[in-house]
């Protein structure tokens, strides 16, 4: 029998290596990258089959699906990184329908020259986030683009979830008299990102609030699912953008009290000297819920029993308004509009 030499399989040099174009070419180098970095981090039965798709069987209930791209800069920030963010963000988009998130997919666009150590760290963080949330990443894709054609790494995740019978949440469901709840302090994520940007670095202990909200949502739906009309996570554009979207889609007005909106003193201080308004700053682990008035107190109480809803607060109410204004009584005692964000030069926050 002729002896055929087996190519020596060199381990990836995670410590000093960099992603090169061969890692995206579909050859052995790519297979090794996928196995050593992604399968290692996400490991589950679906991925191990190495098919082009994941076979998920049937799911009970109404299906919901979402997708989101992540281009945050910097990739690592206080309280999280692009990996955990890409898991939490998509889980939250599903959870805002009242859904139980079931499966995620992940697609990577990596810039040539990106350090393997950073890629590993990001993948491990995604794996950890997915495991602790109980939502597996079941399929994925990797592309490598030439140096300068991307900024380190971009991640795109999609997710599928199921909604129990009787729950029908949508941004057009808010009605006059409903109560506006938020699950905690506003603006933490955006300020954490800005504090770590090159040209703005300032010392702060603020961490991103990046977190999966589906368990908090499960507590809420179990308490008074029928009372939930709208749930949204106030990410880009912050609370202000979310409330304006709800006002417009439901053709109502919103009235809030500035003094009731939770904002951490450190976040308020950072916003003060950056010239920002915390109402417009992004969150990645908070939700806004519009709920029927009779169950508002019960829901608020239930939210406060969960660690991610500890600082939940009722901040205002839905009113009739043909102009769909979001109005606020300022802590100073006057009135103002909380308008849509317009053309502000904000950094890439998610």
């Amino acid at each position: 029998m002729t002896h055929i030499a087996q190519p020596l399989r060199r381990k990836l040099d995670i410590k000093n290596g960099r992603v090169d174009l061969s890692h995206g070419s579909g050859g052995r180098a790519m297979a090794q990258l996928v196995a050593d970095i992604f399968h290692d981090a996400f490991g589950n039965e679906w991925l191990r089959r190495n098919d082009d798709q994941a076979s998920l069987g049937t799911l009970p209930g109404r299906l919901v699906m979402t997708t989101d791209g992540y281009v945050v800069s910097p990739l690592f920030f206080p309280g999280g990184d692009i990996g955990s963010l890409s898991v939490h963000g998509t889980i939250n988009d599903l959870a805002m329908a009242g859904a139980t998130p079931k499966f995620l997919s992940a697609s990577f666009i990596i810039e040539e020259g990106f350090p393997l150590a950073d890629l590993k760290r990001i993948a491990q963080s995604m794996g950890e986030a997915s495991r602790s949330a109980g939502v597996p990443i079941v399929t994925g894709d990797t592309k490598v683009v030439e140096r300068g054609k991307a900024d380190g790494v971009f991640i795109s995740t999609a997710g599928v979830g199921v909604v129990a019978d009787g729950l029908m949440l949508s941004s057009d469901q808010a009605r006059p008299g409903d109560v506006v709840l938020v699950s905690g302090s506003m603006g933490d994520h955006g300020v954490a990102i800005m504090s770590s940007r090159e040209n703005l670095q300032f010392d702060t202990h603020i961490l991103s609030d990046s977190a999966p909200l589906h368990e908090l949502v499960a507590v809420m739906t179990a308490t008074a699912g029928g009372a939930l009309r709208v749930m949204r996570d106030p990410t880009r554009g912050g609370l202000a953008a979310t409330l304006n979207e709800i006002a417009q889609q439901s053709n109502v007005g919103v009235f809030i009290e500035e003094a009731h909106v939770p904002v951490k003193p450190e976040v308020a201080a950072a916003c003060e000297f950056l010239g920002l308004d915390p109402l417009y700053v992004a969150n990645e682990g908070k939700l806004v819920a519009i709920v029927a008035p009779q169950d508002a107190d019960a829901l608020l109480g239930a939210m406060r029993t969960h660690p991610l809803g500890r600082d939940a607060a009722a901040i205002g109410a839905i009113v009739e308004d043909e102009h769909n204004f979001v109005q606020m009584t300022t802590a100073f005692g006057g009135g103002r509009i909380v308008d849509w964000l317009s053309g502000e030069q904000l950094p890439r926050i998610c």
Partner: protein
Amino acid sequence: MKYVDEYRDADLAKALAARIAAEAKPGVSYRFMEFCGGHTHAISRYGVEDLLPANVQMIHGPGCPVCVLPIGRINDAIKLAALPQVTLCTYADLMRVPAENGASLMKARAAGADIRMVYSTMDALRIAEAEPHREVVFLAIGFETTTPPTALAVKRAQALGLRNFFVFCNHVLTPAAMRAILDGANAETERLDGIVGPAHVSTVIGARPYEFVAEIYRTPIVISGFEPLDVMQSILMLTRQVNAGRREVENQYARAVSRDGNIKAQREMDEVFDLRDSFEWRGLGEVPKSALRLRGAYAKFDAERRFDIETVRARDNPACECGAILRGAKRPTDCKLFGSLCTPDTPMGSCMVSSEGSCAAHYAYGRFRDARRARAVEAVS
């Protein structure tokens, strides 16, 4: 937040509001102009108008650097940025100001011009140091508050021997603009009973340069901090001056402003800049001795000299009322474009661009009052 919350206290605001309401005489109308965009923004953001009686009216002034920059100078900046060797550094607000034919710095950037948004003059200086093959132009705008930092950057460039750093100077002077406003304010509709004077500008130039307002124009002025309680206290002080027939320069912002101001900053400005004979302001037209340019000793940093810029006066959109609004002669809602063709997302005039602009502030914070007013008018008629 220490040293901030104290100036935004709702109970103190209520008490001040009650004092103003008690002291403003029924049947007398009090028309006060807040000169600065910073005050306009504070009044709108905190809802100060809701705390004033109906006969105390605030008129928004021209103290918004982005708003008063004439279109011709924006055209110049766009032309500069189009030069292949030039990197233009600017504050973000200016990016969206509409120039002629629908152009803007934002669009120029999308078309390939090297335009970078910076937070300070020093950021631009750092870019010039790091990229010696680029000619880096800083688009300098602003009143006396932002002028000393530009002076320091120019001196720093001199010390570093930089040959690729230039300033396109559009620095303007507050007292000259105030004089132009008061000269124009003869008509009954433009009558001013008092001025809420600048906060940050006054920390640099002091209280003395406003003495002509009281002495020559017989108009009360109160230099005021930018916090909402500062503004309310200043309005009370102006109301008292009017009631007593006094015309004085009073200083509400004594925690930061002295009569002579910041002498060191004034010296730096004086060393680097001298007065232009005349400068065009949006809304005010040509105002004599109202702006600065680099002195001959610093000519090599002057973008106007380096790139032979000859500003051509450009016409504002004829339907846009920015000019009259900047003079205090009209309110944002008097403009036909306001809220329909002209919004913060689709600005037609500069007052809709900067958050300190009267139109942007009214649109973003105050336009619910227009609906309320319209309902009241309907109910009466």
